[in-house]
Structure formats: structure tokens, C-alpha cells
């Protein structure tokens, strides 16, 4: 068969317009040029496909025919089912979000002068390995908000909207004048009087969790017509050192502790302790009980458990989008550059808003590019391995499992080559439509 068997017509052997015959027709030469590629492709790509298909019908040892048992395992094995479910999440969300971001970035960067610099920054992660990206995001997703950037930002945002507490785990010590008041608050056992100096000692705040501004506690001084007092950490390191329920020179005040005076269940006055733990309440507090509200003692917000069982897959998808949104952006930007400007201008002249131009002109014109980008990313995501393998910690790797990872485990650590082969054939089946599409598109071009 010659190169152009199109339309069933017989071609003249040496049509002047055809591409062939420039180098003569010595087939041995052609064979020599092709041989290395075809041998390697045959041995390393084609043969393994056949082998995997056959192997997937044999049992663990490879000796006994297993029918479709291995394929049944795809849907019954707990690990594979999780992997399958996660792969579906990956294939649905990762390519679409990456493409959407790529589209937004491509359209927006057209309007700023430093768009190229922006594109470079977003495209750069494509050049690095998934291993490096994995290590980068292990750091980003560190649970401790003091170390992991994601939680540092998240906790920062969270604490802007809700008050951070200062004294988790603080509680009354022995023979304390305070008693629990329910809900985590503490209240004085007896009412206070004006002119009285109240002691509100607590214990149990770890030294490194004390507020930065805390100063040495100062014993309360009574003042007429006012209720004064001190709240402080009544604890000195070492047994028997320090006096119970009175201020020692080594003890720190609870800077910022909130104190409420409560009479008949109503808050009649409130104050905040100074750096040395002292506070002053007006005369209206006379006869009230002093309460330290629960908000003082809440555990500090520690952010999200990004790599815990429930968030690990979305978190890893986030790192994938970080890597691949640039790819989508660059391809879409190239498509955008070929959109005729006059078309956009015409729409604008007709009074279309920017959004309408985007929605009704730009996106439809880019549809083929968007489809290619999404499909490419889908194929890529189907085989995702490195990022999950590196980012998911041992404790949640089962929850983050994907097919390629499960294949690796089954094939190379659990000695289940039959099931692993079935997974690989399953992956291959999923890309066959794209294979077919590529070949068809090219056949048209080749025949041109």
C-alpha cells in the first residue's frame, strides 16, 4: 500500500506532487532508518500491552487461568474501590479547575503590560518534578500553623473573624477562690465588695503559651468605691516554692484576661487584665460574683488537617493545579492570540459588556482549545502517581489512593501481578477513545 490510498482511486506510481521518491525507493534504506524505532516501540510499548492483557486473565502465580476474577477485584477490593472513587474525583475536578484558571489567567494577562512575567511565574512549576512539587506541598500543608503556610494563612483569616483565646487549659489550683461555672467559665465562690482586693489565681498555662506581653504579677491594692484584683499564673517551678493563692515575684500576670462581674445572672461590669494581671471594676460590681468567661480558655484554633483522611485528596489536587494551570494558560493564550481582534471589537462596538464578549465570543471561539486542554489533562490525571505517593503521609495514603498508586502497590509490593495487570488494562481502555480520536484526526491530515 502506498502513502495515499485515498478515495479508492489508483494513484500513478510517481505522481509529481506526492512527497515520496525524493530519496529513491530503496526499501532496505527505509527499513534501516525505521528499524531502531520500530524495534524499541515493539519491545517496550506494543509487546507489554499484549502481555498485560494476557496476564490480567491469569492468577497470582501466573500459572492458572483466572477468567475475569482480576477484573472483578477492581470493583470488590476495598483499596481499589477507594482508588477508583478518588480517580473519578481527580478526573472531574483537576482538569476542569486547571482549565478554568488557565482561561481566566490567559484572558486577564492580555490586559496588563507585565502579563508575560505573570505567565512565566504560573508556568514555571511545569518544569519541575512532581517529586519536588510534592516536597514543596508537604511543607505548605504542614499541620502546625507556625510552620505550614496553608494553615498560617487559614488560621490568620479565621482569627480575624473570631477572637483567639489566650489561656487554653488554665484552671483553678488547690484551695482556689474560683470554681467552675459550667461551659468552661470560672466564677468566684463568694460575691465581691468595693474596696476589696480580689485574687483570681489559676494554674496550668504552659510557659510558652503565656501572652508575649505578660509581666510579673502585682498583688492587688484595694481602692475605695472600686473592686480591684489580680489574675495571674499561681505557679512557681519547684515543689513547695511560692505561696499558694498569693502573688510571688516569679509569677506572671494573665495579660488580657477578661473578667465579668455577674449579678443575678446578668453582667453588670467587665474589665480586661493589664499586663501585670491587675484589673479594676467600677462600683456597680459591688455584691457581684466575678466570672472569667469561657472565651478565655478555648483551645486556640489550629487550622485544617489538610493531609488528614477527609481533605487529603482535595489538597493534593490543589498541588496538581498549581503545577498544571500554567499549561492550560499557555495553550489557551496561544489560542486567544489567534482569535481575530475585529470580532471582539465588533462585539464591543455593538455595546456588549466585557462579560458578554467573554461569554458569547471568546469562549465559543476557544472551545476547541479548551477541549484539547481538558482532555490532555484528563489523560494526565488518570495516571497521577507521584504527587499522591509523595504528599499523602502514611497515615492517610489509603484515603488518598488512586489507580496508578494501587497498581504500583499490587504489582510491586503485594505481589499481585494479575490484579495489577487488570488495573493497567483498565487504564488503557480509558484512553482508547483519545487514541482513536488522535489517529482519525491524523489520518485526515496524512491523506491531505
Amino acid at each position, binding site marked *: 500500500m502506498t502513502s495515499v490510498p485515498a478515495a479508492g482511486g489508483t494513484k500513478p506510481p510517481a505522481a509529481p506532487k506526492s512527497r515520496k521518491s525524493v*530519496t529513491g525507493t530503496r526499501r532496505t534504506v527505509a527499513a534501516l532508518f*525505521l528499524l531502531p524505532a520500530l524495534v524499541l516501540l515493539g519491545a517496550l*510499548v506494543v509487546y*507489554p500491552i499484549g502481555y498485560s492483557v494476557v496476564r490480567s486473565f491469569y492468577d497470582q502465580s501466573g500459572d492458572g487461568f483466572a477468567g475475569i476474577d482480576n477484573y472483578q477485584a477492581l470493583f470488590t477490593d476495598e483499596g481499589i474501590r477507594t482508588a477508583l472513587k478518588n480517580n473519578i474525583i481527580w478526573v472531574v475536578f483537576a482538569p476542569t479547575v486547571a482549565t478554568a484558571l488557565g482561561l481566566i489567567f490567559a484572558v486577564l494577562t492580555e490586559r496588563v503590560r507585565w502579563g508575560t512575567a505573570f505567565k512565566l511565574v504560573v*508556568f514555571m512549576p511545569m518544569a519541575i518534578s512532581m517529586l519536588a512539587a510534592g516536597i514543596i506541598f508537604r511543607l505548605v500543608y504542614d499541620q502546625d500553623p507556625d510552620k505550614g503556610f496553608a494553615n498560617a494563612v487559614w488560621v490568620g483569616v479565621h482569627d480575624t473573624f473570631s477572637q483567639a483565646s489566650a489561656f487554653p487549659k488554665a484552671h483553678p489550683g488547690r484551695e482556689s477562690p474560683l470554681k467552675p461555672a459550667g461551659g468552661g467559665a470560672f466564677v468566684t465562690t463568694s460575691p465581691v465588695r468595693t474596696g476589696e482586693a480580689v485574687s483570681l489565681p489559676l494554674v496550668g498555662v504552659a510557659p510558652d503559651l503565656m501572652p508575649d506581653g505578660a509581666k510579673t504579677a502585682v498583688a492587688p491594692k484595694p481602692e475605695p468605691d472600686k473592686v480591684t484584683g489580680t489574675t495571674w499564673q499561681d505557679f512557681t517551678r519547684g515543689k513547695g516554692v511560692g505561696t499558694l493563692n498569693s502573688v510571688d515575684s516569679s509569677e506572671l500576670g494573665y495579660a488580657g484576661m477578661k473578667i465579668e462581674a455577674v449579678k443575678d445572672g446578668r453582667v453588670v461590669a467587665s474589665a480586661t487584665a493589664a499586663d501585670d494581671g491587675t484589673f479594676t471594676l467600677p462600683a456597680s460590681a459591688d455584691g457581684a460574683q466575678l466570672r472569667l468567661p469561657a472565651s478565655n480558655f478555648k483551645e486556640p484554633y489550629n487550622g485544617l488537617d489538610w493531609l488528614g483522611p477527609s481533605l487529603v485528596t482535595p489538597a493534593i489536587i490543589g498541588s496538581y493545579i498549581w503545577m498544571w494551570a500554567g499549561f492550560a494558560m499557555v495553550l489557551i493564550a496561544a489560542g486567544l492570540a489567534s482569535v481575530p481582534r475585529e470580532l471582539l471589537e465588533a462585539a464591543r462596538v455593538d455595546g456588549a459588556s466585557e462579560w458578554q464578549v467573554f461569554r458569547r465570543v471568546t469562549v465559543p471561539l476557544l472551545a476547541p482549545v479548551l477541549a484539547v486542554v481538558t482532555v490532555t489533562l484528563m489523560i494526565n490525571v488518570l495516571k497521577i502517581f507521584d504527587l499522591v505517593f509523595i504528599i499523602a503521609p502514611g497515615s492517610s495514603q489509603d484515603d488518598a489512593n488512586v489507580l496508578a498508586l494501587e497498581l504500583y502497590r499490587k504489582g510491586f509490593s503485594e505481589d499481585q501481578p494479575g490484579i495489577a*495487570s487488570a488495573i493497567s488494562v483498565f487504564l488503557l481502555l480509558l484512553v482508547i477513545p483519545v*487514541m482513536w480520536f488522535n489517529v482519525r484526526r*491524523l489520518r485526515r491530515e496524512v491523506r491531505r
Partner: protein
Amino acid sequence: MNAKQSLGSRLVEAVGGGVLRVFLIVVGLFWLVPTIGLLLSSLRAPEDISASGWWKVFSEPSQITFDSYAKLLENDDITSSLLNTVWITVPATLLVVIIGSLAGYAFAWMEFPGRDWWFLGVVGLLVVPVQVALIPIAELFGTIGIFGSVLGVVLFHVGFGLPFAVFLLRNFFAEIPRELLEAARLDGAGELRLFFRVVMPLGGPAIAALGIFQFLWVWNDMLVALIFSDSGSQPITVALQTQVRQFGNNIDVLAPGAFISMVVPLAVFFAFQRQFVSGVMAGAVK
């Protein structure tokens, strides 16, 4: 009225432009911060890393130290695996370029039976996932005795790099003006001379794009090397991967190691952006 309208729209544009700039800057920062975090982490002592986040160096620049890098370069596992990465990547790239060019040229300009069907067959292999070949090739390499060697890793990469190479180069070579080839032919050039003196030089841009693409692909690979290399032939990605299980205890190895492994691809990326982009665009089907 017209002037007023344009004033209004100009105002909207100015405000919108400001919002747009801020948005893009914030997004750009978000894209940069993770990498900066890795770089700064690699420049801090392990005690500092376990005590606080990398942003601490902005308030305490004295924390910056190259100790982790110095220690890393004395670590034989890391240095030998870096060399292995080079020994794997360079041959795998050169072989794909050479073998792919030969086949691409044959598919573009030679005549033999079933030419286009063979080519379509190669195109069909573009999207075959490497996972399909892991188990069969592991057995094959075990049988012929190259499992665990650099050669095995290189061969695997060549096999899976070829469909794209042949696809890209055949399409590019087919665009070479036929007169050029005929002229060289009339001057008495043989097949090899024609290939090396005319086709390869004219195919420069495509060969560069392919070479850079393949180079980055192989340099950055972890999965293939994870299976086909052993402790003596493993590249840097695999060497670092073995450390990840104790993440947290050995961040002073992982952070500088990851950064060193990124330096070459990033340098290649910045030096050959255009070729890289055209490789990526052509490879959008891979």
C-alpha cells in the same frame, strides 16, 4: 453626553484595572510562595525548621545558612544519585532525538509499503500509559539481566519517548520544501548525507523542542526509575523519595535535595522557554 459616558467608562476601567492588577499580583504571589518556602527552608538549620515557619527568616535573616547544602554534597547517596540522573537523562534524550529523527524522516520522505499505516500506529501509541508496561518490562529486563541498571531505565524512557518524537519530527520534516531535498539529491548526496546535512539542520527548532521536552520528562521522572533502578543506579528523585517517609525528621536533606534537583530543569526552562512552550503545545495530546 458622549464625553461624559467615556469619562464614566474610563473611570470604571481605571478602577477595574486596579482590581485586576491587585488580583493578578496576589495570584502570582500564591504561585511563587510555595517554591520560595522550599528555598528558604533549605537555607535554615533543622532546629529552626522544627521551631518555626520559613517566613521567620524575614525577621531573623541571620538564620540563613548553607550548612544543609554543604552536608548534602558530602552525602554520597545524594551526589551519586545526581550523577545517575545525568547518566540516565543525557543518553535517553539523545537516543530519542536520533532514533526519532531517523524514523520521522523515513515516514516523511521515504516510500515503502504501508507507510502511513505504520505512522498512524505510532500515533496511536502516543497516549499509552506507562503503567501498562511496568510489570511486563520488569519481567523482560529481569530475564535479559538489565533490571536495576541505568541501561534499563534509559531504554524504558526511550521506548515511551519515541511515539511523541516520531509524531513531532515527522510532521515537521514533512514541511521541508521538497526542492531543497531534490537539489541536494541532484548534487549527489546519499541518504545519510541528506539526513545529516539537510534534514537535521532544517529540523532544528523541532529537534530542540523535542530534546528539551524529553530532557525535562526524563530528568523529572520518578515512577520509572522507582521500579527499574536499584540503589546503585537510582536518580535523585528516587533517592529523595526514600527519605520522604520520615518527613519532618530529615527536612534538612529533603528541602535542599529537592531544590538541587530543580535547578537544572529550571535553568533549562528559563533558557529555552520558547522551545519548551512549542514542545508542550505539540505534545498536548501526550
